[in-house]
């Protein structure tokens, strides 16, 4: 069981991710934008971050860049949920410190499988 932070401004996506991962036996917290997620992550310790890219207040890439700078999150896997299959967002996210990405649309089984791989 891992402790996971799911970040998305869309409640349906957030609930879907959260529900799916809880069903796979993980502990999941939610945040609805990068700023909120950053505060939560700094005040806690997560084993994995899953974040949407396009969000109000603070986008996912800025969030990853900020969180990666925290020493506690040096090695933590951080995945982007992105509809942008274009390479620019992925590259931008990677440069900011993202571990990888999951391309929307995905189904719950794909999500669980990916998380399982990342967590080993």
């Amino acid at each position: 069981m891992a402790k996971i932070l799911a970040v998305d401004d869309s409640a349906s996506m957030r609930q879907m991710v959260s529900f799916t991962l809880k069903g796979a036996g993980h502990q999941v917290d939610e945040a609805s934008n990068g700023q909120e997620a950053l505060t939560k992550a700094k005040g806690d310790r997560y084993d994995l971050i899953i974040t949407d890219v396009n969000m109000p207040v603070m986008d996912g890439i800025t969030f990853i860049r900020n969180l990666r700078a925290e020493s506690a999150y040096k090695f933590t896997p951080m995945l982007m949920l992105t509809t942008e299959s274009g390479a620019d967002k992925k590259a931008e996210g990677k440069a900011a410190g993202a571990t990888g990405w999951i391309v929307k649309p995905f189904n719950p089984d794909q999500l669980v499988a990916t998380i399982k791989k990342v967590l080993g």
Partner: protein
Amino acid sequence: MSVDLSRFHGVFFEESYEAVNTIETGFLDIDVDNVDPEEINTIFRAAHSIKGGSATFGFTQVAEFTHVMENLLDQIREGKRGLNQDIVDVLLGSVDGLRAMLASAKSNEQLDQEEFAAFIGPLDALLDSNDGPKPTPTVSVTAAETDPSGVTPEVSEDEAAANGETPVGWRIVFTPHKEMMQRGNDPLRLIRELAELGPCEVESDASLIPEWEHFEPLNSYISWTIRLNKYAPRTSIEEIFSWVEDECDLAIVPVLPEVSAPEAAASNDAAAESVMRGQQNVATPVPAGRTEAENSSPAEASPSPAEKVTKAKPKASSAPAESQSIRVDLLKVDSLINMVGELVITQSMLNMLSEDEDLQGNERLQQGLLQLHRQTRALQEGVMQIRMLPISFCFNRFPRMVRDLSRQLSKDIELVMSGENTEVDKTVIEKITDPLVHLVRNSVDHGIETLDERRAAGKSENGTVYLRAYHQVGNIIIEVEDDGKGMDPDALTAKAKRKGLITEDAILTDAQALDLVFLPGFSTKEEASDLSGRGVGMDVVKRNVQALGGSIVLESELGQGTRFTIRLPLTLAIMDGQLVAIEDEVYVVPLVSIIESLQPYQDMVNKVVGLQETIKLRGQYLPVLRLAEALQAPGADYQKPLTEGIVVVVEHENRRFGLFVDDLLSQQQIVIKTLDDNYRPVPGVSGATILGDGRVALILDVGGLAQLQNQADMNYADAG
């Protein structure tokens, strides 16, 4: 494990409708000559969010549509395309399209191809038009089941064919860059994943680990050569390394059948050579994602997104506070309200019982009952609050409507709204929306003059329509006002005569003349227009308002404007009532309608033969309706002298009249049960309630009684 995605549909639709509203208000507020990038960003994000969700939850039509919208918005956001009213029109039209698609998706349907084409056509046309760049190649938005890599397996077959033979395995030389682990990628994970494809032999090269003093624990120094002894498509290997392709050196070399033995025994030099070959191999023939990423990322893509981020950041500070809410089926709320209603009845029954002499002395019981009374009321109020929604749920549609109408009519009209947060019962909102749409349309179409007319009248060119909502003692008041040409009482009267709605010799006060508008078959414009129809609406508007237990009043000043004032109860479920008695029967008069109650003296009573009974109250003659007679109450004395009973003075739409009853009983809050559902509509009666003693009492409809009184008046008039 499989998750049923339909459980998230409710939330998805809720947030999608919100997002659609965001897009709509965004475009309504936008100043095309001076576009705030953050405004476009907000709109873009909303469309993007719908796209992501709809693709995930399998609503392909919505996904395809928002994808095109998003492309267009992206061009605007990037400044590659200018904005003008025509584009805004198209995008607002696409808002309607989205709503239609969401609505059909909600019932598990799709728009038929023609409808869909009608909505997406204008967007595609815009995207194809010359004044913007060519649209990015359409990414086909596929259902959730699709392979996330987006690469089809055929690629590997092609490759195998090109090599002439199918490899029996792969040799993978994997050298992570020093920082790889610092982005959360673990080399061991990748090797483990490779092992899932088939048996692996792994050789690690630790020669690059530096001396201790130069050792940086955060870095990775080891490289691996992995031999996968089983054929797997190249893409499945690439997919494993897709996240780290820019963080490692990677060579994927096929192991072919006949060369497998020498290859396996090859020296380090040979291996290095094949790595070189492999590198080249990787760079050239592999299509799709890889090359695209390499070409675009350093060159053009990275500076612009970075710019976007910094631009967006300082403006994005005002985050709306997230309101905490849960979704509950309305049926559950209503059954809760019903139960509380029953509780209120039980409570008032206990109250009545406690008036028993034997119990009066029991102070603790009395105290307890008093407490129960207060708590029941608090509970009831709290529960009723659940059904309350801000009137903005209804008002939200009007900015768009007024904008579209005024563009259509070439008028310059501003809509000023206030009190959007005024709360009212959900049912009231649902039922008042259509009448309000009608009134606002009327104001825009008939009320506000054309630009020329306004100039000629010395008015400012831009007209204003006001939409206000506020609370007034247990009611919500909604006003629709315009500063247009107003209505001419003489013209209205003349027209009503022409149409035979009133007699030729009728003399009406201004207020009565304005009231003619509410008569069935009356229209203020000779010509029917597209927008407001033939004026069939006003009588319907009035009927709808009255069906909600409300009233509507029209005031108009010629040349100055017109105002409709609608008064509605906050809720349809409970009300304060005055209990009155006729013989043994108990009736309820809504307390809001009552002005006063009195027992007339003999000299107040006027009974002229052939005319309706009146009482003279403070110099004014007030018609009196005998309730017993009007309701045909059994066993009642229809001729009982007015001095022996009570006259309850009620008001309806600025008209007062008296209701003659035998006795006044208590005032109490009552729970309304509709008669329509349980019996059938009865004129003069709006519903029924259960009293504390378990008896049923009818609730009187003062508006309906006013009509009965009117008829009585006319009958007398005809007779005389």
